Each structure stands twice: as C-alpha cells, then as structure tokens.
C-alpha cells in the first residue's frame, strides 16, 4: 500500500524529532484529553494514555517493513481508544462513550492497523513483565542473547567454562521465560 504523508510522524518517533512529536501533541492531545475526560479519566490519565499510544506505535515502527498507509489521526484514535477501554474494563464499574467514533467511522484500514499494533504491544508488554520475573542470571544471559552476542562471546563475558555450558544456560533460561509467559493469566487473551 502507498505511504501516507502522515508517515512523517512515524519517522519522527523513530528519530526522536522533538518538533514533529510536538506537532503530534498539538494536533491530537486535545482530542485524547476530551475523550478520556468524557470517559471517567482526567488530564493526567490522558497524558499517560497519549504516551503509551505513541510508544506502542514506536515499537511497531521498529519493524523494518512498517509503512503508515492511513491518516495518523484515525490510526492513533483506534489505538488510544483500545488501550483506554482495556484499562476501564479492568475497573468493571466504568462505562465508555464512543464519542469520536463518528469522525473515524469510515477508516476501516486504520482500525485494522491499530488493532494489530495494540495486539503486538500487548504481547510485548507480557514478554517484558515475564522477562523481569526471571532470575538476574537468566536476565543477564538472555539480554546478551537478544542483543545478538554469540554463545562464544557470552561464555567469555559471563565466564562459563565452555560454550556448551553457556548454551545450556541460554536454553534453560529461555525455557523458563516461555513457561512464565504461558502461565501468565494474560497469555490466553492474546
């Protein structure tokens, strides 16, 4: 699909372009603030939600093949709406009003893209939580693995006796991480 002109905001996030990120705030923070305040939140909740939404987009954007082919406004709306509804769902007493739905009702492609982004971000958040629950030793060895170091280098850095023992530790820790992920209550929702 062709690149939308709003793809500049995706590049802005990747390159930490303060001026363009500020433009994102100027254009869409009032809308997010109004939505959150109308739906049982306050301005600080809106700021947190805005931040989470942008970071979810950034993580999606790190995938080399990600191209924004829809307007940023619609894409961002469906992301922050999904995330806010999710938060409210966890507090079962709160109701949601779909206030901005009318404005974005024809943006089906944006909605689909946003749902994929949120889903990917939910998985990432789960993996991050479970990674932090590992022992320090496992975090250390897996961090080096994910950073791209070879078992040989990991053996030298962490002073394993042999490459084989480094590999055994890597695989054991990976198994522990997978176990934590699969036993997490959120795993079945993904």
């Amino acid at each position: 699909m062709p690149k939308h002109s709003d793809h500049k905001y995706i590049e802005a996030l990747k390159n930490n372009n303060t001026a363009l990120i500020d433009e994102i705030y100027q254009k869409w923070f009032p809308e997010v603030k109004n939505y959150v305040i109308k739906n049982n939140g306050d301005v600080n909740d809106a700021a947190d939600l805005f931040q989470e939404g942008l970071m979810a987009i950034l993580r999606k954007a790190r995938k080399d093949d990600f191209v924004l082919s829809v307007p940023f406004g619609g894409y961002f709306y469906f992301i922050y709406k999904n995330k806010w509804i999710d938060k409210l769902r966890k507090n079962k007493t709160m109701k949601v009003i779909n206030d901005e739905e009318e404005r974005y009702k024809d943006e089906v492609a944006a909605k689909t893209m946003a749902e994929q982004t949120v889903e990917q971000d939910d998985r990432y958040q789960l993996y991050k939580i479970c990674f932090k629950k590992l022992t320090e030793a496992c975090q250390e060895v897996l961090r080096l693995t994910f950073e791209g170091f070879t078992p040989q280098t990991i053996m030298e850095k962490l002073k394993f006796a042999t490459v084989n023992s480094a590999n055994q530790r890597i695989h054991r820790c990976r198994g522990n991480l997978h176990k934590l992920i699969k036993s997490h209550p959120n795993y079945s929702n993904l």
Partner: protein
Amino acid sequence: MKFNYEQIEKYIKGELSSTEAQSFEQELSGNSALKEEVALYKDVENALSKQFKFEAEDAAVETTIAQLSKKYVAQNVKNSVNKPQENKAEEVENSKGSIIRRLLPLTTLAAAAALLFFFFNPFNNKISPALLAVQNFELYQLDASMGSSDVKATWQEAIKNYRAENYVVAINKFDLFLKDNPNNKEALLAKGCALLKLNKTDLAIQTFQQINNSKTANWYLALSYLKNDEVTKAQPILEGLLDNKKYGAKAKAILHDL
C-alpha cells in the same frame, strides 16, 4: 512438557540438515504444543531483540514524550484557570432581564469554583509515579579529574561515553573501573543513572543500594522505585530527605503529588 530449544533454534535459523529439518517439520505438523512453542520462540525473539537493540534510542524518545506530556498538561491547567474569568466578564455585561439570566452569573461562578477545585484539589491531582520520576530526574554530573593514573583512562572513557549518552558503553567502562574500585560512589551513581536512562530500573536499584551514607544515592533510589511503580518503597526514602537542603523541596513536592 519439555522442549529441545537447541533444535528449535537451529530449525528457525535454518541450521538443521535437510533430513533433520524434514523430520522436525513432520513432528511439527502432528504436535500442536511444539507448533505453539516454535511460534512463541520466534515472537519473543523478534520482540525482545528489538527492545534491546533500540533500548537507548527508545529511552530517549520516552524522555521527549514525557517532557511534552508535562508541557501540555501544564498548558491545560493554565487554560482552564483562565476560562472561568472570561465567562464571568461576559456574564456581567449580559446580566439584564429574565430570571434565568440573573441566575446565570451564580451558576457560572459555581462552575468556575468547581473547575478550580477539580484542578487544584490536592486529592484529585493524580500523576503516575513513573511520570513523577521522569519529571524529577536529572543526570548525575561527573568529575573527569579524579582517578589514579592506571585507571584514569578507563574513567575518562566512561565519562566521555556517559556525557555523549552512549550509556551501554559507559556502563561497561564503569564496570571495568569498579572492578578495582568497588565502592567508588561517583562511578556507582553514574552507572545507576545510566541504567535508569536505559530503563533497566531493577539493575539501577541494585546499584544505588550499594552506596552507603549518601543522600544523593537515596534520592536516585527513590526515583528508581517510583519509575518501577514501587511507591511504598519510595515514600520512606523521600520522607528521610525532607530536611536535606538539596533534595528536601523536591521530595516534599513528590510526596504531595503521590
């Protein structure tokens, strides 16, 4: 169920022989648990390798976003305080005639009071602990002149990278320096701050905990706990800083916001 991660890894990387790959694929087609495991392996690898690859860059973006959030929240508060005064002036001009128009100034004043109370009621000012940590964080400033001659080069390399925001390299250099100087406060403080910038909050907490009798270390430890959403651990530390000249006012402000 136990899985052979070495085999899974080789399969994904294409390092199995054609016979081995064929046999593995046959097993995959009949084993849904193994299929799930392979899919999970790929997804975790993709997600977490990207996280660590772009950790420093993403932390910088997060800081930018947090600063902009602070700016727009503050602007919002300022705009909301100005609005009721404008409404009041307009209502004074128009207050003639009907009962509704005579009552309107009173209702507007009541709305203005409610709005002011909403924004300035200390019990309603909810800022997340993590955002408080980001707002109050300032990088610890180092002195390049210290250090004995044999480790001076390492120390200066560490500072150079620290100041250039190459935190991963800086941390490695600090670790090298700390091998011979394990209790060096400056190195531990800087290393802890570099870890915080990389969002390695647990490791930052461990680092600051190694420093004894230091209000500065306590301050950064409190910020680390806030960033980790461990408010009950941050609070007593902040209370212990209330009398401190440098951190007392900030600690008081954070406790107020919490």
